[in-house]
């Protein structure tokens, strides 16, 4: 039996990536990292800033995402995200830009705990990339 399913990543501008030979996807879900294999139960969850890892027949790919929602249904994984970057051809300058704006955001007063947590996460991930 094949262990593959399909994944589609869309951002507001376009359909970013679509693959149908995926064996496992690791996503940074809000309550912790989550690996999704074939025949997972239908699930909706949202993402925190982090790395998406896609394992497929053709190899392994990693992407940085800012936020997003995932929906898994009938062996179809949809990932909606507003900002996604391919780690293969990542732009160092862009990363430090995001990092800077996140730091500024963090220093603002009046942000709540959840926002703070998300920003901390973001910085941590960005540092690990850079």
């Amino acid at each position: 039996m094949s262990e593959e399913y399909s994944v589609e990543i869309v951002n507001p501008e376009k359909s970013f990536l679509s693959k149908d030979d995926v064996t496992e996807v690791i996503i940074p879900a809000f309550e912790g990292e989550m690996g999704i294999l074939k025949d997972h139960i239908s699930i909706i969850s949202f993402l925190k800033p982090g790395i998406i890892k896609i394992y497929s027949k053709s190899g392994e790919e990693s992407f940085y995402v800012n936020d997003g929602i995932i929906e898994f249904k009938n062996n179809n994984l949809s990932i909606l995200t507003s900002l996604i970057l391919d780690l293969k051809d990542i732009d160092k300058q862009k990363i430090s830009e995001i990092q800077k704006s996140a730091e500024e955001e963090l220093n603002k007063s009046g942000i709540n705990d959840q926002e703070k947590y998300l920003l901390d996460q973001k910085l941590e991930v960005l540092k690990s990339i850079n």
Partner: protein
Amino acid sequence: MASLDDLKKRISSVKSTQKITKAMKMVAAAKLRRAQESAEKGRPYSDKMNNIILNLSNGISDIENAPKLLSGTGEDKVHLCVVMTSDRGLCGGFNTNIIKKAKQYFQKVLDEGKNLKIITVGTKGYDQLKRLYGDNIIERISFKDSKNINYFDADKVGKIVIEKFEKKEFDVCTIFYNQFKNVITQIPQEQQIIPLNTSEKDENSSEDNYEFEPEEDEILSNLLPKNISTQIFKAMLENSASEQGSRMSAMDNATRNAGEMVDKLTIEYNRSRQAAITKELIEIISGAESL
């Protein structure tokens, strides 16, 4: 009758206007293709988003405690309208159509004795509304500087709307934009985004049981603000395609009209030239005869 010189001047001025409208048509056609492409590419995102929200709101058991963005404030007193228009003119009935649609809605709201607040996106909408509804306009936004429509601009508008909602400044939010059908037809749309209209159910979504992580409410409260930005972004994409389409057909018409005008003026010019020659000939001949 206008003199020959005047006619000549008029012909050349119409011709140069024609050149401008022709160039604008070409530019609009090129931009239209791009705008249409991005409108089409943007659709999967907003469709998927819509689907997920529908699935979620079906799964919600406790309607009473559902997020306010979904269920509304329970009141219907203050209406916020986001009117999306273009920043540039010369695009036919594009802006006027949106404004007309919006004005009908404004009238209805005011007739019912409710409060009206307006946010204009794009300068043309503001220009047309400021005289009649100047006091109702609470915010005006323009993206004249950003070349391409991007999600972050839409997100800015979305954040303004949500911020105002959280401050309880309005109960119902509606956006107005033009939906792109084809180059000739654009349909002005009104779409209510707060509270969200979930009555249109998807056939294939109802029987699924999802596992939610974290809880439904938490996902929903995270998702709904994003959905608002997404809807606004979709409207902006549709709008920009419509604007270019509308401009293209308007400029095409203008070019054709200018051509007709040049033809008419040329005939008039030739006629009066011939008339002048005939007159001179008659004068010469009658002068020669009288000798």
